[in-house]
């Protein structure tokens, strides 16, 4: 075994992960806190008023990161589902199950903030355009995943069934992302093309920092939630009894 696959194997063992996730979770939590506070400062104080939108655009600092997370989390779920199905790693299923409610929450936030932003921008809370609708569908996919995962008496059956759904549903992620290019929509086109961007740097950097902050926030939450998912799945094992006992 190469050192890398050795590391991978050790990490995949639930007790080891359980140990390791605690310090890493702390690190992620602190990073998230610092980044989000910095971004808030940058976005709410330093960034200038927009000459068209006034201060309204600042909702972007919540909307865009949560929209981005809604896609990112689903990709994480699809990858874990794949790993779980191929290598039969229970840890991967735990990660997917822990991610789903978080992803659903991010999606909901993106939908709500988008709607709120839509009222001043488009004059209505909701239009049936491609990006909005596909994001809504993504939300239903999350719900479907959660429902299916909980539908079986046996947790492993639920995990694997939901994993299959996550893999098939992953097709929606590119559709959400490219919807603005494929159809003419009311929604803003992609602002990031490669490394160049149309947004003024003073507005842009807080956004990027905020996105990093959201990602670490998710990282912290998912580690934390995965720990309890593992305990649930391994509750009849020796090591869990030790952990719970201590």
């Amino acid at each position, binding site marked *: 075994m190469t050192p890398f696959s050795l590391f991978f194997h050790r990490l995949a063992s639930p007790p080891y992960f359980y140990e390791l996730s605690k310090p890493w979770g702390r690190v992620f939590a602190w990073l998230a806190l610092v980044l989000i506070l910095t971004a808030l400062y940058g976005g709410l104080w330093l960034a200038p008023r927009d000459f068209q939108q006034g201060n309204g655009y600042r909702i972007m600092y919540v909307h865009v990161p949560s929209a981005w997370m809604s896609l990112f989390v689903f990709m994480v779920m699809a990858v874990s589902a794949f790993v779980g199905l191929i290598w039969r790693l229970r840890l991967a299923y735990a990660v997917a199950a822990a991610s789903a409610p978080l992803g659903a929450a991010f999606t909901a936030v993106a939908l709500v903030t988008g709607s709120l932003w839509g009222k001043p921008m488009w004059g209505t809370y909701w239009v049936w355009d491609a990006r909005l609708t596909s994001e809504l569908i993504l939300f239903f996919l999350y719900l479907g995943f959660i429902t299916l995962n909980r539908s079986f*008496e*046996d947790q*492993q059956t639920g995990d694997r069934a939901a994993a299959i759904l996550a893999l098939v549903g992953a097709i929606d992620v590119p559709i959400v992302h490219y919807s603005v290019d494929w159809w003419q929509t009311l929604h803003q086109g992609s602002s990031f093309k490669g490394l160049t961007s149309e947004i003024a740097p003073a507005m842009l950097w807080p956004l990027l920092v905020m996105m990093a902050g959201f990602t670490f926030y998710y990282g912290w939450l998912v580690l934390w939630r995965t720990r309890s998912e593992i305990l649930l799945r391994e509750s*009849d094992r020796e090591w869990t009894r030790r952990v719970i006992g201590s």
Partner: protein
Amino acid sequence: MGLDVKGLELRRGRRLLASSLSFEIPNGNFMELSGPNGSGKSTLLRVLSGLGRLETGQLFWEGQPFDRTGDTHRSRTLYLGHSDGLKGALSGLENLSLFASFRELRHFEEPVQTALEFYGMYRFRDVPCMRLSQGQRRRIALCRLMAFPAPLWLLDEPTTALDPLGIERFMSHLSDHLARGGLAILATHQSLIERLRPTMQLRLGRAG
């Protein structure tokens, strides 16, 4: 050599049914699986067939470890569970022909006919299975064992709903199978099998 099972842990859902089962069935022998209701007989058969989940334990065939879900194991195994596995809308003959297609067999008419005659179902061969009586359906299911020979039989209460004549038939069929070097595990409650002494008996414990 036959089938060799080592250190098998039997679970159903979260219930631990047996912690370490080991047994060996030489070719030409059969094992009677008994135990109170809910002790795990069906579960064991499902695990050996490849349906249920195997968590810990090793399986060997002729001394070689094998993959329960591989085609080699599948083509040497016939499993008959609590349910007959017959499509109600199809007749007995059609069901058997469908089963032949599962085994990718081309020529099966003759053995199927022999089997139907042996189990006294030849005259009912064209009746849709949903219009057969419970025991008649069971007989059709047993025809599978005769028409499509395989060395390993995993049978879950195979004589349920059979009349005495049917049981008779099944017993002589089973002893043929054993004589030809076949292996079988039978879950059963009444040791009906008086004529044939099982080589092995495995008694599973009290329902966990």
